[in-house]
C-alpha cells in the first residue's frame, strides 16, 4: 500500500529541485496580486473622509503587520518540527523564514511611524499594538542573532528552535500584557483612530496586497532555503552533481 | 562490556574517522593514541554520551547507550581536558560537592583521606586557584577514588603530573582493572600498568 503522505520531499536532496520548480509560479502570483492590489489601492480607491490621502499607507501597513505575525508562527512551527523530528529541512525552513519576517516587522514599524506623523502628530506612541510589534521585531532579531552566533548549523538549529518555541508561548502573553498595560493607562495619550467602515475597494486592495506579501514570503523562503541547502550540504554528492555546480 | 560498531565522527566539514570498531572487556584497558587532532577527544565524548553519534552504534552490555540513560551514566566516569573544579572552593569542598552532585555522600574526613592519597595532604583547605597545574589535576583525579563506575574514560590524565603522581595513577588503574573494571585512556606517552597489557587503539587520519 502506498503511504498517504510521501516523505520524499522532506529531504533537501529532493526538495531542492522541487523548490526550484515552484519559485516561478509564486513569483507570477506575487506580481499579479501586487499589481492588482496597487492598482486598486493607489489608483482606484477613493480618498478617506477623515484621513485624506494619507490613509493609503494602510495598504502596505496592514499587510506587513499581518505577515510579520503570521511568519513568526510559521517559523516557530518549522523550528519545532525540526527539533522534534530531527528533520533537517524543517530547521532550514525556519532559518529561511526569519529574515523575511523581521523585514516585515520592520516595514510595519516604518510604515506605521510614517502614518503616525501626519495622523497623530508624532512618529511613535507607546500604544499596545505598536509596542507588541516592536517586541516581535526584537524576538526576530534575537532568533537571527542567536543562529548567527553559533557556528555549528545543527546546534544553531536546535538552539534557535528552543528560542522560537519559548517565544511562541510568549507572544500571546506579551500581546495581552501590553494590551492590559495600556488600557489601564490610556489617559491623555492619543488613541488609534480606526478607519471607519471600509469601502469594498479598499478592503479588496488590502487583501490583495496581503496576498502579494504572502506569495512574496514564499518565494523568498524558497530562494533562501535553496541557498542554505547549498551551504550546508556542500560536501554531499547530490550538491556536487547539480548542473548549476558542475555544468 | 562496551562495544563500538561502525562508528563515524564528523566535525565541521571534516570526517575524522569512520567504520571504527572495538570492544572493551572487564579487566582490560585500551590505550588510545593518534596524532594531534585525529579525533581522540571527539571519540571519548561520543563514548560517554556527551556528543551525538553521527553514524554507528555504541552498546553497553549489548544495549545502545542512548536508551540506557541514567544507568549508563552511573557506569561511566569521565575525565576530560578540563578539571571540572571550582577555582574558589577548596580542594576538600570540590571533592565533596563533586561527589554529591553524582549522588554520592562524602564527608569532610573521607575527602581529606582521599586528598592525602593523591598527595595533597596539608592543602585540603587551600582554594583550588592557588594550586599549581599538577596539583589541580591531582584533585580532579581524586574523583576516581570515590567513583563506583566500572568504566573509566580518561582524556590525557597524565598531563601536568610529576613522576610520583604518574606512578600513583598507574597503580590506581591497575587496582581498578584487578577489581573487574575497564578503562580507556589517551596519552601521548607510554603507559605501563602492572599486570595488564593494553589493547592498543591507534586512530589514523581517514
Amino acid at each position, binding site marked *: 500500500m502506498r503511504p498517504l503522505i510521501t516523505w520524499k520531499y522532506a529531504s533537501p536532496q529532493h526538495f531542492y529541485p522541487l523548490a526550484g520548480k515552484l519559485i516561478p509560479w509564486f513569483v507570477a502570483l506575487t506580481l499579479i496580486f501586487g499589481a492588482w492590489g496597487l492598482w486598486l489601492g493607489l489608483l482606484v480607491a477613493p480618498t478617506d473622509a477623515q484621513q485624506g490621502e494619507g490613509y493609503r499607507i494602510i495598504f502596505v501597513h496592514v499587510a506587513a503587520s499581518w505577515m510579520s505575525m503570521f511568519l513568526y508562527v510559521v517559523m516557530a512551527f518549522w523550528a519545532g518540527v525540526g527539533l522534534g523530528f530531527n528533520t533537517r529541512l524543517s530547521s532550514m525552513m525556519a532559518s529561511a523564514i526569519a529574515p523575511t519576517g523581521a523585514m516585515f516587522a520592520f516595514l510595519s514599524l516604518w510604515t506605521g511611524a510614517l502614518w503616525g506623523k501626519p495622523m497623530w502628530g508624532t512618529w511613535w506612541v507607546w500604544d499596545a499594538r505598536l509596542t507588541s510589534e516592536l517586541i516581535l521585531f526584537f524576538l526576530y532579531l534575537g532568533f537571527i*542573532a*542567536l543562529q548567527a552566533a553559533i557556528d555549528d548549523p545543527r546546534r544553531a538549529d536546535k538552539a534557535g528552535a*528552543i528560542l522560537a518555541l519559548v517565544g511562541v508561548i510568549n507572544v500571546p*502573553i506579551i500581546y495581552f*500584557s501590553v494590551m492590559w498595560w495600556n488600557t*489601564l493607562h490610556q489617559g491623555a495619550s492619543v488613541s488609534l483612530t480606526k478607519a471607519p467602515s471600509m469601502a469594498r475597494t479598499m478592503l479588496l486592495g488590502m487583501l490583495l496586497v496581503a496576498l502579494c506579501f504572502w506569495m512574496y514570503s514564499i518565494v523568498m523562503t524558497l530562494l533562501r532555503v535553496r541557498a542554505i541547502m547549498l551551504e550546508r550540504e556542500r560536501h554531499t554528492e547530490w550538491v556536487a552533481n547539480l548542473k548549476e555546480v558542475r555544468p | 562490556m562496551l562495544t563500538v560498531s561502525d562508528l563515524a565522527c564528523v566535525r565541521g566539514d571534516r570526517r575524522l574517522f569512520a567504520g571504527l570498531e572495538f570492544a572493551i572487556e572487564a579487566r582490560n584497558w585500551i590505550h588510545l593514541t593518534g596524532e594531534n587532532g585525529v579525533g581522540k577527544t571527539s571519540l571519548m565524548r561520543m563514548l560517554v554520551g556527551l556528543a551525538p553519534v553521527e553514524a554507528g552504534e555504541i552498546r553497553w552490555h549489548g544495549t545502545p547507550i542512548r536508551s540506557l540513560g*541514567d544507568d549508563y551514566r552511573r557506569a561511566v566516569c569521565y575525565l576530560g581536558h578540563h578539571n571540572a573544579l*571550582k577555582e574558589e572552593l577548596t580542594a576538600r569542598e570540590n571533592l565533596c560537592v563533586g561527589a554529591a*552532585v553524582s*549522588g554520592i555522600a562524602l564527608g569532610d574526613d573521607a575527602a581529606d583521606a582521599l586528598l592525602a592519597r593523591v598527595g595533597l595532604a596539608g592543602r585540603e583547605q587551600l582554594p583550588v586557584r592557588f594550586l599549581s597545574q599538577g596539583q589541580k589535576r591531582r584533585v580532579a583525579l581524586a574523583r576516581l577514588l570515590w567513583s563506583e563506575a566500572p568504566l573509566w574514560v580518561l582524556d590525557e590524565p597524565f598531563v601536568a603530573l610529576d613522576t610520583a603522581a604518574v606512578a600513583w595513577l598507574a597503580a590506581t588503574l591497575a587496582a581498578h582493572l584487578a577489581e573487574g573494571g575497564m578503562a580507556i585512556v589517551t596519552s601521548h606517552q607510554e603507559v605501563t600498568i602492572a599486570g595488564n597489557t593494553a589493547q592498543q587503539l591507534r586512530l589514523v587520519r581517514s
Partner: protein
Amino acid sequence: MSAFSVFLAVVRRDLLVALRRKSEVLTSLFFFVIVVSLFPLGIGPEMDLLRKIAPGVLWVAALLATMLSLNRLFANDHADGSLEQMALAPVPLGLLVGGKIFAHWLVSGLPLVLIAPVLGIQFDLGSRALGVLMLSLLLGTPLLSLIGAIGAALTLGVRGGGVLVSLLTLPLYVPALIFGAGAVEADISGMGAAGHLSLLGGLLALAVFFAPWATTGALKIALE
C-alpha cells in the same frame, strides 16, 4: 542519596561559590541600588516626577540586575568542565538545573526584594505601595531567574554571549515588567493590585514548569 538531596547539594555548592567570591552577592544588589540612584541624577530632582516613574524605574533596575548576573549562571560551570560532569551524573539534569536556578535566585533575586523598600522610600512611595512593590518583586524575581536561565543556556559557549543573552531575554521579560510595575502603579492610583499580582503568580507557575525543561534542552545542545 535521594533526588532532593542532590538538588540541595547543587544549591549548597552554588551558594558556597557565590559566598566565596565574596563581593558577588553584594554587587548584584549594589548594581540595583546604583541604577535606581542614577535616575534622579539623570532626570532631575522633582519629587512629583520621581514618584510617578518610581515603579517603572525600580522594576527596570531589578530586571537589569538579574539579567547582568545571568552570565555566571552556567558560563563558569561550562568553562571549567563542571557542566559536563553534571550532564554525566546519574540524576536528571533538570533537577540539577533547578537547583542552580534556585541558588541564582537566592543570590541575586532575594536581596533585591529585601532592599527594594529602602529604595522605594527615596522615591517617596507610601507604605502600602512599598508592600505591593516587595510582593511584586517576590513573585517577579524568580520568574526573571527562570526565564533568564533559558537565555543563559542558549547563549552558552556562544562567543559574545554576554550581550546576546540580554537580547534574547529582555523581550521575554516584558510581561513580568508590565505586571510587576503595573501592580505598584495600580496600587498607587487606588485601583488595587490583586489582578496584576495574580497574573504575575500565574506566569511564575507556568515558568516553574517549563523553564527548567527548556533550559535543560538548551544545555544539552551546548554540550554537544
